[in-house]
């Protein structure tokens, strides 16, 4: 998937699952849209569905610790690959 395709998919998830429509790519999602840790966990599940493989606990923790904006989410997804079980 290209970054644009990933962005479109993620924006759809944000609109449908989190009722956050067209957030700015560099908005602080928590500050600007009330996107909290529960939402982040749900988003990771959506990302697993999108990519078709299960994320490791380490990959998930990295996301929870570091991601604040949509651009960071897109970077994160672009860098994901299945880890050996």
């Amino acid at each position: 998937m290209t970054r644009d395709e990933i962005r479109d998919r993620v924006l759809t998830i944000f609109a449908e699952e989190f009722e956050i429509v067209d957030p700015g790519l560099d908005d602080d999602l928590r500050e600007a849209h009330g996107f909290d840790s529960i939402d982040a966990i749900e988003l990771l599940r959506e990302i697993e569905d999108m990519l078709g493989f299960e994320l490791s606990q380490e990959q998930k923790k990295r996301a929870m610790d570091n991601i604040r904006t949509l651009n960071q989410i897109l970077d994160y997804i672009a860098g994901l690959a299945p880890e050996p079980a």
Partner: protein
Amino acid sequence: MERRVVITAASAISPIGHTRDEILHSLQNGISGVQPLRDDGLLSDHIHSQVFGTVSADIPFDFERKYRKTMGPVAFYACQVVKEVVEQAGLSPEQLGSGRLGVAFGSTHGSPTVQRGIYETFFSKSGKRFASIGAVDYLKSMVHTTAVNITKMFGITGRVISSSTACTTSSQSIGFGYEMIRYGMQDAMICGGADEYDTTTVAVFDNLLACSTAFNDTPSKTPRPFDADRDGLVVGEGAGAVLLEDYESARRRGADILGEVVGFGCNNNGGDLIFPNVDGITATLKIALEDARIDPGDVDFISAHATATKMGDVIESQAIRNVFGETTPMVSGLKSYMGHTMGSCGAIETILSLYMMAEGFVAPTLNLDSIDPRCAMIRHTPGLADYPLKVVGVQNFAFGGVNTCLLIRKM
């Protein structure tokens, strides 16, 4: 310190209506909220009892997603009635967040609908390795989901009590809330209970042969508390919330006082987990009267637990007779209108009693066409009648041998 405790707001979602006017209309016109059991594609075909006390009011839940995301159906009901109570009382964010206002709210077992979704993942044939259990499924389904969704939505920072004692869940909520205020631990408590539409509860009682099955084609004819032809309970759904306040602060702020909680009795039968126990219930009623420091003759009306099971109604009648003697208060079984709304029944039946107290009438037990001779030693409400109620008792008994009795006085 012992303080007086008053009820200053109330709201119910019930099978006979949502608003006060709807509920009063049903009570005054003998309208039942029992309907055919809905097909749930899972259990409903296997259940013998094909009736359910169903909420049919169209309720526009307008909660923001940040609140909705941790709520199963039971929490929607709970938060809606609490929202109405908060609005009725005009509680400010400062009062709600003062730490002096708490919540006592529960349900029979969280959200069975959400729990069912969790169990389905065990049997999923999708082959997905990644879990389909949502991050919030626990928050939606846990036993205290109603209480803490309420605290979140309204910014409540006081105590949380989340009783989950089946049919005494919300009567305990009110009773424990009353004790919190009476003994000075909190100044106000939002109390109640809720339960959502759920066929697993029906299946449980159905398996115990405790559900009504003979009136599947005429749902409004069952349940039939105290009637010779009663054949068991009808499971229902709903929610009820009341605001309890310290009398002095309620008076100072000019609150509308719906009634005073003057006594609460709560005990356990100390034995069998299912069968009602006449000694246990007799003791409960006496404890409540002692707590209220009133005489049996002061009580005008009893809202009986009266589920319409074969033995439950007989034993409750015996206990009432034991405590009140030959001239008992008038007794009605309000479940005859709604079915057994489980964790919410104590709160809903309290609220219906408050409405009747305010309007000065008593509603008779619906479907009581021929009194069972074994239940005839108490004074059944003879028909819809204007009656100035001064003190009412609300009785509830649960699986596990838990009994409660609330005594409420008109001010």
